């Protein structure tokens, strides 16, 4: 992780060890310790006995494989860093490696999910894809990152929330399989933004109030008038630039955009559920991965979501899962209901 939290803050969280937030304290401690030293010699996998993967205190290890497309658009490219190997000195390779580690850690430690498929699937990424390629995507097997054109975008591995976003597409594909079109597609995008944000917050030990709720902070060059690609909390305000124009995301159902492009505006209308998520998290406060994060993960893995789920159906399922996990009269369930209400998505009752 390149991003720095003031050490005093980490110290405070790590030492507080509030029993309500064992994971946060743990996250802060880990952030202080940083990565273990790179292994030398052949990789020896720990001999793990059969353990249920849902135990946060029985962490699994990621199996990362970073390849280099060397400026071509051919996948997977040349394998340049495997699990346990040292930094390569190539920033894109090492950022991708670290980011995948941070993402794996959130899913593993908080949600008890070992990798994308829940069964230790290798985390594969390709960097330096294409020439001046302005994008990052998930191709069904791997995350792919371009270097950006250098004028609008710098490299796409510069943002942890972007790395988490791409990996979360893999998780969605292995769970709720939300169809990438229209409202279900915008939900697919939203889920990736939500977990991308949580990966960043978890790695930084940030609570919902301290969090930026920005997706892709730091991937614009200094030339661009903007903070990030998207703001989950204030959709439509992430950038306002002469060249790029203004962030077009709607923040409320009344501004839902009907379009044929972008698979029905999946990157636009995701602003609506994004805001509901961020509002609920801030209302509950504390660490978002402990509250809304768990509810959204439960929703994704409930088996109750249709692949073509609408915003309303998704919202109703989050409320059901919140009531199940935290209780019908809980503050969590109320905040989530309220969040959806504020963006104009009605939940039953």
């Amino acid at each position, binding site marked *: 992780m390149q991003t720095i939290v003031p050490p005093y803050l980490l110290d405070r969280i790590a030492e507080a060890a509030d029993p309500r937030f064992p994971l946060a304290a743990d996250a802060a401690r880990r952030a202080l310790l940083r990565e273990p030293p790179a292994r030398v010699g052949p990789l020896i996998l720990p001999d793990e006995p059969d353990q249920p993967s849902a135990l946060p205190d029985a962490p699994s290890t990621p199996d990362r494989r970073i390849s280099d497309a060397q400026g071509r658009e051919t996948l997977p490219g040349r394998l340049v860093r495997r699990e346990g190997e040292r930094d390569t000195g190539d920033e894109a390779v090492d950022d991708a490696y670290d980011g995948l580690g941070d993402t794996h850690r959130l899913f593993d430690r908080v949600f008890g999910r070992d990798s994308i498929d829940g069964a230790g699937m290798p985390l594969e990424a390709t960097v330096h894809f294409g020439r001046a390629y302005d994008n990052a995507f998930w191709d069904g097997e791997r995350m792919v990152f371009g270097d950006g054109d250098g004028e609008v975008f710098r490299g796409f591995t510069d943002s942890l929330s972007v790395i988490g*976003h791409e990996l979360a597409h893999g998780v969605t594909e292995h769970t709720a399989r939300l169809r990438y079109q229209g409202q279900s597609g915008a939900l697919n995008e939203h889920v990736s933004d939500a977990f991308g944000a949580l990966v960043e917050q978890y790695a930084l030990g940030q609570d919902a109030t301290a969090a930026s709720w920005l997706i892709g902070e730091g991937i614009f060059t200094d030339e661009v008038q903007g903070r990030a690609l998207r703001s989950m909390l204030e959709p439509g305000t992430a950038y306002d630039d002469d060249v790029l124009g203004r962030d077009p995301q709607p923040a409320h159902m009344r501004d839902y955009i009907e*379009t044929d492009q972008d698979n029905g505006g999946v990157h636009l209308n995701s602003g609506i559920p994004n805001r509901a998520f961020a509002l609920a998290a801030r209302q509950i406060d504390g660490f978002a991965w402990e509250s809304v994060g768990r509810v959204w993960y439960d929703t994704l893995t409930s088996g109750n979501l249709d692949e073509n789920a609408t915003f309303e159906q998704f919202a109703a399922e989050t409320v059901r899962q919140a009531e199940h996990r935290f209780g019908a009269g809980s503050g969590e369930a109320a905040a989530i209901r309220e969040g959806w209400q504020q963006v104009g998505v009605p939940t039953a009752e």
Partner: protein
Amino acid sequence: MDVFVSRSGGLAGLRLTWHVRVDEQPDADDWFLLIEQIPWNEMPPEPAEPDRFTWDIRCEAPQTDGATHPDGATQAAGATQAAAPAPPAAEVQEATLAERQLTGPWRRLVDRVQETAEPQRAAPGSGRT
């Protein structure tokens, strides 16, 4: 003949468009040959890949009797249309491709369009093409 290329989607959801007036190109004949190779009706819909670009490619030719080229080219280059009857309806060919389908003549056409025209930023979600 006009060629329009639109790239939408992508992680950032930003849309770029390119437009080439083929008749104004010094190598217009090469363009026509390339466009003739485009397998317009052979693109099955692909399942979307999250965050990947979607490409929309459209060629519009003024409808003429029979061949659209190279007569079309000379007619437009002649630019003496003041006396012509009402402008003919355009003949439009269009396809939407997932990025991984952008190969062969599709790729060559898009590369050529990008080399020839500067991209314009279009408001995401605007328009329906």
